């Protein structure tokens, strides 16, 4: 169905590790992959799916690795890609970062994981929390000689194991929102949307049943509460643990949470959002000699609020040299490996306007191809403020939520 074999290749296309699940596609087939990839790249017809004879390569790239699934039969393409990204996620949880080195250092675990993630081409347990229970990093637990078998795999609630105990029962909630804006060259906002995630950090004993309330407009209308400050959630996706059928009928978000950190839900709103920090840039390029950049940033939020850790990344040509900066506030730094200038401002109060000038030298020999103009990115954090105005309302859980301390809330990130 999904994949016959899974390969992890380094940048040159050499297999670092491979796992053949079905055996109907030879392991040698992978040799064609890199050639095909390069050929397609040259033709400019690069696609995430490369056919070679009867074999199809479905690949993704992560850091300096290629993850390739091969298949011979008609599979479900979206399932394969979702799975590959899941694999990356699981490995990242295990090794902090997934790269060539971490694979080389952990062959045994990677191989075991690959074995556990998929059986005969069909994805299995892919929840890293559960996997971590029985594929342990060091295997120290074995010394005790007790052959503990995790019950979680066989549970219906596959994301939480039984018998968790905490002295202090706590839940922390983070609401993190980011704003996506598409602005035309003339400066008018074409598309604006807020993408938010609600993250939970749960330290609760037993099998708690929780409910989360939001100032969701549909819910408020259902229950007949006032329309004050409600938010219309455009579309929502939930962690596996949320009872989707419940949400569908009466908009309650009820769930048995996994232990520790997890992302409960993410939502999207496409309301008209006024950009919080408006950045205008003038980039003048005198070919063969220099580039002059003028960036103007304006805080368009309430005067009482302060944006922390503002980072404005302005892209510059890759062959620029000898940077010179002048800023009205904060500091600017040239980051040559990412080809940009990073202007950081520790605190940026609302309604203020700041300027930065940068000057770069350019080599007299010009590159042949013209570079694209990547966008200027802004990243910031405003505590206790959400763009969408979403609020987490305390709602009693079946298991007595009232006893737990309420958490903290975070503002948006760029």
């Amino acid at each position, binding site marked *: 169905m999904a994949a016959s074999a899974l390969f992890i290749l380094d940048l040159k296309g050499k297999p670092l590790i491979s796992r053949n699940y079905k*055996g109907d596609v030879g392991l040698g087939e992978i*040799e064609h992959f890199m050639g095909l990839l390069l050929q397609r790249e040259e033709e400019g017809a690069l696609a995430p799916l490369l056919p070679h004879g009867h074999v199809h390569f479905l690949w993704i790239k992560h850091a300096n690795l290629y993850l390739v699934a091969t298949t011979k039969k008609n599979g479900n393409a979206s399932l394969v890609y979702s799975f590959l990204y899941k694999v990356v996620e699981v490995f990242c949880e295990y090794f902090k970062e997934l790269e060539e080195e971490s694979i080389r250092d952990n062959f045994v675990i990677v191989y075991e994981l690959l074995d556990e993630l998929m059986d005969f081409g069909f994805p299995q347990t892919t929840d890293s929390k559960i996997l971590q229970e029985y594929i342990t990093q060091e295997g120290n637990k074995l010394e005790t000689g007790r052959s503990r078998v995790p019950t979680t795999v066989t549970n219906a609630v596959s994301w939480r194991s039984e018998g968790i105990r905490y002295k202090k029962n706590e839940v922390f909630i983070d609401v993190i929102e980011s704003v996506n804006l598409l602005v035309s060259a003339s400066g008018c906002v074409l598309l604006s949307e807020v993408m938010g995630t609600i993250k939970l950090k749960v330290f609760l004993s037993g099998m708690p049943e929780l409910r989360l309330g939001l100032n969701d407009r549909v819910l408020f209308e259902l229950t007949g509460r006032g329309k004050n400050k409600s938010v219309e959630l455009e579309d929502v996706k939930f962690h596996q643990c949320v009872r989707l059928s419940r949400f569908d009928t009466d908009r309650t978000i009820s769930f048995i949470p996994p232990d520790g950190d997890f992302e409960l839900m993410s939502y999207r709103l496409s309301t008209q959002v006024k950009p919080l920090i408006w950045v205008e840039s003038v980039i003048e390029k005198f070919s063969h000699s220099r580039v002059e950049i003028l960036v103007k940033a304006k805080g368009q939020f309430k005067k009482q609020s302060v944006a922390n850790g503002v980072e404005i990344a302005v892209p510059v040509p890759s062959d620029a040299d000898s940077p010179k900066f002048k800023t009205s506030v904060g500091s600017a730094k040239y980051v040559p490996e990412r080809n940009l200038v990073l202007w950081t401002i520790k605190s940026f109060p609302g309604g203020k306007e700041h300027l930065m000038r940068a000057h770069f030298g350019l080599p007299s020999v010009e590159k042949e191809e013209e570079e694209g103009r990547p966008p200027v990115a802004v990243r910031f954090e405003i505590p206790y403020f959400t763009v969408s105005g979403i609020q987490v309302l305390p709602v009693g859980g079946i298991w007595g939520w009232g006893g737990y301390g309420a958490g903290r809330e975070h503002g948006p990130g760029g």
Partner: protein
Amino acid sequence: MSGNGLSYSEQGGEAAPELGQEAATTTTPSIPAAFGLFCSDIKKNEDLKQMLESSKDSAKLDAMKRIVGMVAKGKNASELFPAVVKNVASKNIEIKKLVYVYLMRYAEEQQDLALLSISTFQRALKDPNQLIRASALRVLSSIRVPIIVPIMMLAIKEASSDLSPYVRKNAAHAIQKLYSLDPEQKEMLIEVIEKLLKDRSTLVAGSVVMAFEEVCPERIDLIHKNYRKLCNLLVDVEEWGQVVIIHMLTRYARTQFVSPWKVSFEKNFYESDEEQKEKDQKVKDTYTMDPDHRLLLQNTKPLLQSRNAAVVMAVSQLYWHLAPKSEAGIVSKSLVRLLRSNREVQYIVLQNIATMSIQRKGMFEPYLKSFYVRSTDPTMIKTLKLEILTNLANEANISTLLREFQTYVKSQDKQFAAATIQAIGRCATNITEVTDTCLNGLVCLLSNKDEIVVAESVVVIKKLLQTQPAHHGEIIKHMAKLLDNITVPVARASILWLIGEYCERVPKIAPDVLRKTAKSFTNEDDLVKLQILNLGAKLYLTNSKQTKLLTQYVLNLGKYDQSYDIRDRTRFIRQLIVPNEKSGALSKYAKKIFLAQKPAPLLESPFKDRDHFQLGTLSHTLNTQATGYLELSDWPEVAPDPSVRNVEIAESVPDSFGGFTCLLSSFFLICSDSEDTEKKKKGISKKITTSNSSDTESASSEESSSDSKSESDSKSDSEPGKSRYVILSVLGLQHSPTLVLYLTGHYPSLCWKRISSSLSLLQTARHFW
């Protein structure tokens, strides 16, 4: 040492084909290093063997870890096979796991030795620990040794009636493996699949449907009885299983239900109005959606909120293929959301949206802006988005779209800019109101600095002019001027063709163009040469006075050209237009042949013909049929008997307990000893309990032991005696709502304490009594 040396060469020989490319690329740079590596391997192997034979588990484990490391790196560790196999019976679960991993890799190569381990597996299959049973079955079925097929068959049969759902799940996986090893077992395997399909555990559902799809997708009759159960279980199945089940159910539904799409009926001329009305009435009456069809749509809808892109995609395709046209719209929102995920997922989703948007524009129109291209998108995503934007264009939004396109044309990505120009061309042909605006815009682009943009514009203008025979003169003149500067062959050829085609409208310019191109003939691209010949021929026919000599000259040049294609064409044209004694009757019609009215090219979407593939499949992405593609059948004219899906109520009682409890609104009734009300209830509940326990004693006991899905179990376990819980499920079955009571133990009376929500349902329940 000599022994070592010998085995080195052996191993080197074995390793070479094994490693394949790796050996070719890595060992070449430094042979001494490679030698050292292998030498150390040999030494390692020796001490690995010793470690494996030691009595300490920690040493064994260490050795196994190193061996598996070698396997993972692609090194040959097969000579350790005998030493490793011995450890298969190890008590330590960690060692066991690694031995299993090793066995799966090498058993095929060393079949005889692998047989040594079989008895251990057989023993492990009877282990009290479900995880050990499951993994033994898994490894046993992964060993691709034909001799053990009967043993595997036996093991699968046994495991399929195991008490643990996890073992049953693994049995379902083993079915596929056995089938790929020996397809002759198909009949027996189908029996097992049939049995497992009846299983009520959510763990098993996904895997067994997977096996069904793999082994016997044509046996759709096996699904009938399980259809409703699968629909109801769906929300609780793990996400990967959901995808598989949804795809299977899509196929199933297409064979079992009538199409919900018949909206307009053809009017029959010869029928009187009354008859027509009657007929309308009849059609309306007959078209009510099968309740089972509705059930499927209902139960998949909440899954649109899943975090797994594959699930969302699967539900979307289900709605696309099965839902009435008015309802399919709900998926678009979720699909648009997927555009925020990784780019490969985006790629697949956009392709599917592109296919959908051709047929039903309305679905995605409100989300037009979501498909605006971002400068950071990779080219493949950009072109797909552009494709969708073009599909969505209509009279209302075309002006905003064109403005957006104008920005795209300025893009640094030249390939993308060219695609945009094509898109403008398509908009212009599809929406007649803006054809002029588009044409003017494109003409403006002709003075663009960038050559590729100009060339692409020329090509598109050529196509547009063919569809718009009205105003040619000016534009053709303009393009004739451009000819001096454009070097891209396709564009030059297009201009020449245009001038030739409409040479009568530009009588002064055309001969001059021929003169210029005749001069540069030898340096032109083949494509352009052919068009020069073409132009010459057309001019010769319409204006032979001025161009006779020129054409002769060009034809002479063509006669001695290097390309045979051009020589052929020259010969052909000469025979056709210059009559001599040999040329046949055809030359009389030369003018008609050359200057015939040509049909305008159709500017169509490349996604036009993709909709016959099931969305979301690999075949759809490739636009060719991949092996194993299962065709979606057309809707049947008359729905097959729906009663085949009916399940006996008696059967559905334990059934509903297994899976339905968390799906359907369930209530907890707390029974306390104090109050003494509602005796009736007791009566009903007792009756059902008896039927329940007598029916499948083993099933329910197993459910409560291993399947902690039903919260009631865990709760009643945790507080035994204090208060007993009754789960009351209101089953929303189609025809007769059934109430099921499940009792844990006996109790004197019941009192209502509402814990869960849904007041209205509660009232329904009260009413029922």
